[in-house]
């Protein structure tokens, strides 16, 4: 088994920064999405934010994938069972796939509907798919389904982290904290890392 000292290992600083930046952007995006489809008065303003924000997330996901190759992941804490580790790994991969696919499906669906893909002012993106009504109809549905799937996967991820942090109290959240964290194991008295 892994030694308890592993618990003090945090993700690389770049991974932690990207993680929290994307938490903010993706949650904002999911909430904007669900509000705008139900709003007459706010629709246009929200769609105007939704489009460029989606493209920013697409770029960040690519940066994050490169970052993941450059910075090896810290091992799982000993408090996580093999089943939990499998669930964590697969839900993480699913979130990567969804964060990558959602902006692409959005971009593709606007292309298929032959909408201009305006980011800001005169700045717009080229279509990535030919105009095709049925393709638009399909991608539009897929966009909603994937968005809900991403929200539910996020909820599962949030539940698991909160459970470990608050109930199991293994300091799981500390691995992703923006600041340096001290290990929370039996040896916590001896292990103190200096901040910075």
């Amino acid at each position: 088994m892994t030694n308890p000292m592993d618990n003090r290992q945090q993700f690389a600083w770049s991974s932690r920064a990207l993680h929290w930046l994307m938490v903010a952007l993706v949650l904002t995006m999911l909430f904007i999405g669900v509000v705008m489809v139900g709003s007459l008065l706010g629709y246009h303003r929200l769609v105007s934010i939704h489009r460029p924000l989606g493209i920013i997330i697409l770029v960040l996901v690519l940066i994050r994938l490169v970052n993941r190759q450059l910075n090896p992941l810290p091992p799982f804490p000993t408090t996580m069972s093999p089943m939990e580790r499998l669930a964590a790994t697969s839900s993480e991969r699913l979130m990567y796939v969804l964060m990558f696919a959602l902006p692409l499906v959005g971009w593709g669906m606007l292309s298929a509907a032959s909408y201009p893909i305006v980011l800001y002012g005169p700045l717009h993106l080229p279509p990535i798919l030919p105009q095709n009504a049925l393709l638009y109809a399909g991608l539009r549905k897929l966009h909603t389904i994937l968005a809900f799937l991403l929200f539910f996967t996020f909820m599962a991820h949030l539940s698991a982290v909160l459970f470990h942090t608050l109930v199991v109290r293994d300091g799981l959240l500390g691995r992703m904290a923006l600041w340096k964290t001290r290990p929370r194991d039996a040896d916590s008295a001896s292990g103190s890392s200096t901040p910075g």
Partner: protein
Amino acid sequence: MTSMPSPDSPPAALAGANRLARLAAVGVLVLAVGTGFAYAGGWFSPRKLTPARFIDTFEQINGVHPGFRRNHAKGVCVGGTFESNGQGTRLSKAVVFQPGKVPVVGRFALAGGMPYAADAVQTVRSMALRFSLPNGEEWRTGMNSIPVFAVNTPEAFREQLLAMAPDPKTGKPDPAKVKAFFTRHPESARAIQMIKAQPIAAGFDNSTFNGLNAFKLVDATGKSTAVRWSMIPMQPFAPSAAQPPQNDPNFLFDALVARVKQQPLQWRLVLTIGEPGDSTSDATIAWPADRERVDVGMLTINQIESEETSPVRAINFDPLVLPNGITGSDDPLLSARSAAYSQSFTRRIGEPKSPSAVTSSEMGE
């Protein structure tokens, strides 16, 4: 999390209660996020007017006609060019106002959600256009043959639809409901008076089409000007016949087809410049007649085809698809139109298509 005391060894019962409390805290936090999302999605406000409920109202009144627009369902596709004379450049940096010619695809239609309704003189006529600009931008606009809009909010629009819906018993709107609507909406009563006072042109070709909603033009220095726009026909005005033909349910469209095949039809694009105090948020209010008007160019329509074979079925004439240099105003109808058109577009585009009332064979092809 680092601020929490490290776990020591409390009595078993206390530890159990503590664990339960912490488990409950996790539940509450997760539930709060989920509830917030559901609230944002409107699942707790079943009466709020959403784009879906707005379009449902059209379907409730007109029935569902798969593949057709939920409003302005009966139409034809037209094509041509817009030639800018450069006069608009002092007001807007939009590429469309720079001197030169750009291709235009458009659609003439009649208001209402019935794709096979017989043409009627009193039915509001519309002209929708998509200007394709050389830098890849687009300008889409939908205009109507009325001087002002009958309502100034999406909620009033829906109320009006329901009030004017034919009573199943009489086949006509219930006068009591109509009266109640105008009592609740004096702005609509005033607008209807203006709409009724305007003489009706004989056809599409000599109708004036008005953008109705206000927009803002932005120039290169960032200065913004409130405008409303109109397409003024070069074809001379002639009033509609007192007795329209009884035997042709498409007499307005057929006349348009014949005219376009004879010679190109033309409209001048005229911007009306708003002054401080002119309402940009209320489409039921006309601006004073002495406002400056700027002729910015000429629309020429020289092609016409049935929409069933045309590109317009796959175009959503969203009035907020605008080039840089034109933006929406504070008129709440603009965002509502954008949202409702998108909803109608998404529904119809995935549905099987039926032939249009104005078929390819009527085009003499």
